């Protein structure tokens, strides 16, 4: 009986722990989750290695990734990329796709192209909305991944 009670407690705590973990889960997405914002740019974007995305055209291309969100509140966002002349920004969007909380544009460091993490700011998420990551990816630039906390 006691063993059964212990097992029940473990299961209950497991459910609570998993629920609590989900509520503030850090999410990571690979760069290949980005898509060309415009149909004409699809051929510019190719997957590099397993999951990064690279702009193989000679000019910058706008790419977008969208993540449905369920946890209301502020969420820090960041993008990890290779470049020196790329910008990214994040936006909370509503049900008709309009921006609600627009983040400031964040630019890569100048100098030689290098892997760097762009802090794209904290975005407020309302119930059943989504976060959009948007980057203007330079020629030869690579997005390795992006994250939401």
């Amino acid at each position, binding site marked *: 009986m*006691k*063993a059964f009670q*212990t*097992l029940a*407690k*473990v299961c209950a*705590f*497991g459910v*609570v*722990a998993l629920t*609590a*973990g989900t*509520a*503030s889960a850090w999410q990571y997405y690979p760069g290949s989750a980005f898509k060309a914002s415009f149909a004409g740019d699809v051929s510019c974007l190719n997957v590099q290695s397993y999951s990064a995305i690279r702009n193989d055209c000679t000019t910058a291309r706008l790419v977008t990734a969208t993540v449905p969100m369920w946890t*209301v*509140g*502020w969420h820090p966002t960041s993008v990890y990329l290779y470049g020196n002349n790329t910008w990214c*920004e994040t936006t909370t969007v*509503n049900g008709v796709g*309009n*921006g*609600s*909380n*627009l*983040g*400031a*544009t964040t630019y890569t460091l100048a100098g030689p192209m290098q892997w760097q993490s762009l802090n794209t*700011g*904290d975005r*407020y998420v*309302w*119930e059943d909305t989504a976060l959009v990551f948007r980057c203007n990816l330079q020629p030869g630039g690579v997005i390795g991944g992006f994250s939401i906390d």
Partner: protein
Amino acid sequence: MSSRLQTFLALFNTAAVVGVLLAFLGHQRTSEQELAALKEQVRQASASATANQGDRRAAAEAAMRMWASTHGAQNPTARGPGPSQPKATPPGDDATGADAPPDELPPTGSFEESRTRVFTAFANEPVDNDWSGKATQTLNETLRQHLPSNSRVKALDCRATLCRVELVHRSAADSAPFMMSGLRSWPGAIFVASEAQEGEDYVVTLIAAKEGTRPPL
């Protein structure tokens, strides 16, 4: 012979029972350890969640206090619809937040509640002449450069950390491309408080926050 067999069986049974008991105790100890670890994880998760809830509750209470200090003496019957029926056009400086009595501001965050909080915070913000002047200039330049020719600025007001901008477009089709790229030179976050068709005008109201600050959503 049968006596020996009985003794052997009795010993074997005893050993088996002891073995099962030891296995059970070992399992029990492992379960207790796992339970303790899970309890610790839950405690940490709860502490984190409580801290977040505490921040949000404090923000909501601050907004409510600001509301009470500004509107506490007003007749409740003179107020407009509640948060579930927000006005398309946000209230101005003299009537900010008039559509949300303080006792109707729950701590959870719907878009309408965020809008009420931001407008309330904006209305209660003092004017920082230095930042206000610079922000107004930056926004004016940005809007002049990027606003479609058929659109216009209806209102622009900057305080200490927030600016309220009201734009009038001829249609939503003019607004969307501007919103996608026209405000990229503003260094802070922007809250799009409302987009509404008002007669022939498509009116967009924005709150632009100071660089490095969060609008009080």
